[in-house]
């Protein structure tokens, strides 16, 4: 009797309890995520801080028209796309290769230590890693020492518009390949070992096993991760670029986020900066929704 009473009580109350558990978090989201969303209306105003959002004059699409007429913006968008695509493509390929190779390592201690080391850079801030990168790629750094050793020209990696993008892509791959290999490793371990045995019986070489069993087995995850990473295509990595670039390489290094920061926040052109940011968000949301559809259609999984 007593037990039944408690059970019903629990049921009756749980709905209200559930709502109460949600409220604190939802309040934080409303204030710190949704209020800034309302703030995007400054993109359609000539925002003047003293007058505030409700006192500033509405100017319609003026800032967007201005944005598309700027000679910089095409360059900034193209930099963003090139850097982001480069990171996705090369990063994915590196992570796949690494996970396939690491899977062959049978000695537990070596495997464990390698994993500990390659995951580490992911957990360090670009603030810290920028010093590491500058140290290696500066004019008298180790990379240039190696180049001169082989009789090659010095390269000013950090101050050259030709070399800045490859540097950004390469160092990002260096930081993340280990960490992103985690999902691929998990995919490999879930492949049926019977397939390898059968292939071994048929005399398949290691390479053929990788090509005909491992890679096809990983394909769903590779597709899913690829589709998901498309959503980041307009975020080429603010932290990294902000910590590595300088006025000389603005031409090749400026991405949408650094541009918004420099023009909008540092230059105090709040409305213009918000307009560029809004442009980025809208394209981002369209990409994410399409990516989710693609993932559902081709991989039977979805992101959310």
């Amino acid at each position, binding site marked *: 009797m007593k*037990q039944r009473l*408690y*059970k019903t009580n*629990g049921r009756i109350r*749980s*709905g209200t*309890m*559930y*709502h109460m*558990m*949600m409220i*604190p*978090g*939802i309040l*934080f*989201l409303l*204030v*710190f*995520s*949704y*209020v*800034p969303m*309302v*703030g995007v209306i*400054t993109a359609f105003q000539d925002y003047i801080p003293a007058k505030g*959002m409700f006192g500033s004059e509405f100017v319609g699409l003026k800032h967007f028209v201005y944005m598309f007429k700027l000679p910089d913006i095409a360059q900034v968008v193209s930099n963003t796309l090139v850097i982001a695509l480069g990171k996705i493509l090369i990063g994915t390929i590196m992570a796949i290769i*690494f996970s396939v190779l*690491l899977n062959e390592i049978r000695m537990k201690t*070596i495997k464990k*230590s390698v994993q*500990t*080391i*390659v995951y*580490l*850079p992911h*957990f360090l*801030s670009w*603030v*810290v890693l920028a*010093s*590491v990168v500058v*140290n*290696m790629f500066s004019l008298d*750094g*180790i990379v240039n020492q190696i180049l001169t050793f082989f009789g090659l020209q010095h390269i000013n990696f950090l101050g050259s518009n030709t070399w800045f993008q490859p540097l950004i892509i390469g160092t990002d791959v*260096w930081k993340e*390949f*280990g960490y992103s290999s985690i999902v691929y490793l*998990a995919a490999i371990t879930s492949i049926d070992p019977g397939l390898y045995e059968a292939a071994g019986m048929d005399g398949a070489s290691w390479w053929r096993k990788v090509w005909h069993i491992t890679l096809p087995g990983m394909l769903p995850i590779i597709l899913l*991760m690829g589709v998901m990473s498309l959503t980041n295509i307009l975020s080429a990595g603010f932290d990294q670029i902000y*910590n590595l670039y300088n006025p000389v390489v603005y031409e090749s290094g400026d991405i949408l986020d650094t541009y918004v920061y420099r023009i909008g*926040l*540092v230059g105090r052109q*709040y409305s213009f*900066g*918000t307009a560029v940011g809004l442009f980025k968000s809208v394209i*981002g949301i369209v990409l994410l*929704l399409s990516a989710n559809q693609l993932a559902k259609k081709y991989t039977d*999984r979805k992101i*959310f």
Partner: protein
Amino acid sequence: MSYSANFKDRMGRVCIYAIVIMLALICLLPLWNIVAISFSSSEAVSANAVGLVPVHFTTAAYTRIIDDAQFWRSFGISILRVALSLALNMILIILMAYPLSKSKREFKGRNIYMNIMIFAMLFSGGMIPSYLLIKNLDMLNTIWALVLPGAVPIFSVILVMNFFSAVPKALEEAAFIDGANPLQVLFKVYVPVSIPALATVALFSIVGTWNDFFSGLIYMTKISNYPLMTYIQSLNVNIADLLQAGTNSSELSSLTEISNKNLNAAKIVVAVIPLLLIYPLLQKYFVTGIVVGSVKE
């Protein structure tokens, strides 16, 4: 015949070991180089003579850090920030993940909350509206500007939610029959069995807040309020940017005076130590956490 196949096989294996170990070294050695620089004399560092072994071993840089009041002030701000963020994040993650792990039938309104969260993950007002909000809330130069905007890590809530929904229903039913209310069930049943997932999101929270320099850069107008990463970042930043941000000249001169390579290297090493301390503790959890969290069937 079989001998040569065997030989080829073994050679292949040696190559694979060599490549994998080389990749690990490529990840490790550049980091180690900074450690070596931090223990070398500044003459050796400016002559670029330091590779992997300190040249003219000295701990001078570290003893100079001891006297650097701003470094420790920023260090303290970062510790406080991580502690507050971690506490807030974990409470909110746990409280939100539990009701959301229920079905639509068990928790009416679940999908509304879910949509609020997903929309916030998809779309953001962007950098400038967020800055104006913090400014209007009078939170510039306070620790709250570093803690409150990131209070709900939505990705982590979803990760823990997925983990919670895999907990056997029977555990919960049994607790309800014993007279527990949902809050007791959550903390006495769900939390203890979900330690791997919770450790993973705790790691994300700690790493994310410790490493973030950008909130400090935009929300703190005085260097004395910088968290550690923003402070370290400011050592490399060019002076014109600081002048534009309205930094006063005495702060500027103290920044330029202390910016030299082996001192900065030592600061970086000290700034990374807290992460290296928790890294091995949590490493065993995050692999499972990431695999659970990244893929939803």
